[in-house]
């Protein structure tokens, strides 16, 4: 009898082991799945108000603009650093300077409280008014706020290669009636104004749109939103 018992026990053991391994495997799989969900969208912390994350990040196409020094500014310039991008024009006396001042303040705060983030960040002002904003004018404007900020502009077809995938837009309008001037052509009115998207566009170091942010673009808000976004990707 003892022999029989022993034999049964020996027969059971591999059986038991199989269940233990299966159980451990299931637990490991569940943990891996939970981690995957945590890293990906399902348990992603919600976007703060006025912030819209693009999931998955959207790769931007190639484009060909000029920078404030008259040099080529292409998609390559968006690689290797994160970019906070803003569209406007230099004849804009209120909203654009206010936003660039906010970005400058935000950049200084980042340099102090998160130097690594600041070092891997560039700020780009894209003028959607290439008729009036030549590179020298762009340089005066952008460097007034921060010497390291980048400025770029270019012909309509190239601007649209950037604005369209970002969901950004701009329109030339009559300063008095606000009637639209036909797309892409130099407006006939001298003091035309440009309606343009008010958001900040956050592009990662692989030139992919990650998030866009609606105003107000105060330094405090820019920093908190930007740190929130970066913490999810770095």
């Amino acid at each position, binding site marked *: 009898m003892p022999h029989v018992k022993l034999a049964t026990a020996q027969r059971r053991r591999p059986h038991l082991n199989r269940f233990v391994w299966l159980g451990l495997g299931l637990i490991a799989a569940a943990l891996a799945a939970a981690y995957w969900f945590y890293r990906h969208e399902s348990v992603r912390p919600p976007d703060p108000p006025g912030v819209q994350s693009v999931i998955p990040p959207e790769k931007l196409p190639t484009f060909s603009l000029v920078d404030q020094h008259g040099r080529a500014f292409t998609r390559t310039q968006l690689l290797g650093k994160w970019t906070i991008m803003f569209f406007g024009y230099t004849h804009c006396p209120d909203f654009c300077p206010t936003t660039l*001042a906010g970005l400058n303040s935000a950049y200084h705060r980042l340099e102090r409280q998160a130097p690594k983030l600041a070092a891997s960040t560039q700020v780009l002002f894209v003028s959607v008014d290439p008729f009036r904003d030549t590179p020298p004018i762009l340089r005066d404007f952008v460097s007034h*706020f921060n010497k390291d900020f980048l400025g770029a502009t270019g012909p309509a077809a190239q601007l649209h290669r950037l604005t369209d995938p970002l969901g950004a837009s701009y329109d030339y309008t009559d300063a008095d009636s606000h009637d639209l001037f036909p797309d892409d052509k130099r407006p006939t009115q001298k003091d035309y104004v440009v309606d343009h998207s008010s958001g900040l566009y956050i592009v990662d170091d692989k030139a992919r749109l990650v998030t866009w942010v609606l*105003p107000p673009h105060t330094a405090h808000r820019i920093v908190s939103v930007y740190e929130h976004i970066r913490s999810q990707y770095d």
Partner: protein
Amino acid sequence: MTNRGWPKVLGLLAGIMFIQSVAWADGSISIENPWVRDAPPHAEMSAGYLTILNHSGKTQTLTSVSSPQFQKVEAHKTVMVNGQVRMLREDKVTVPAHGSVEFKPGGYHLMLIHPLHELKLGDRVEIHLQFKGTQPLTVDAQIREAAEEMPPHGMHKMHDMNM
């Protein structure tokens, strides 16, 4: 910014120190905290800000603005239309009885068009405000940086400590 206590106190102190308040002779309208944004060099446009207080019992209407230092001055308002930012020219700005209208970044602003000579930080801009049925009111607005643009105090010190 105006929602928090400290900037308000600082603003008040700044107001006491160097920002004048101009009152209309009969005391019905006064202008507080006029300032002009320090614009980039060669900028065609700049913006002026101020607060109009109406101490009278009837609506006051700002009908035109001018400055001897600019070709043209217009009252404008920055508004959001379908996610786009747009500048609207305001032919007149009404200030309700016993009320006020604040011209501030991102809202109402005086659009200063084409400076007749180069202006720099600290310069003063003379602004004439014409209200309906009154004589023009003149304010002297200093060119300064917006609060956001000023580097925080003690920044270099903190920077050194971090390094």
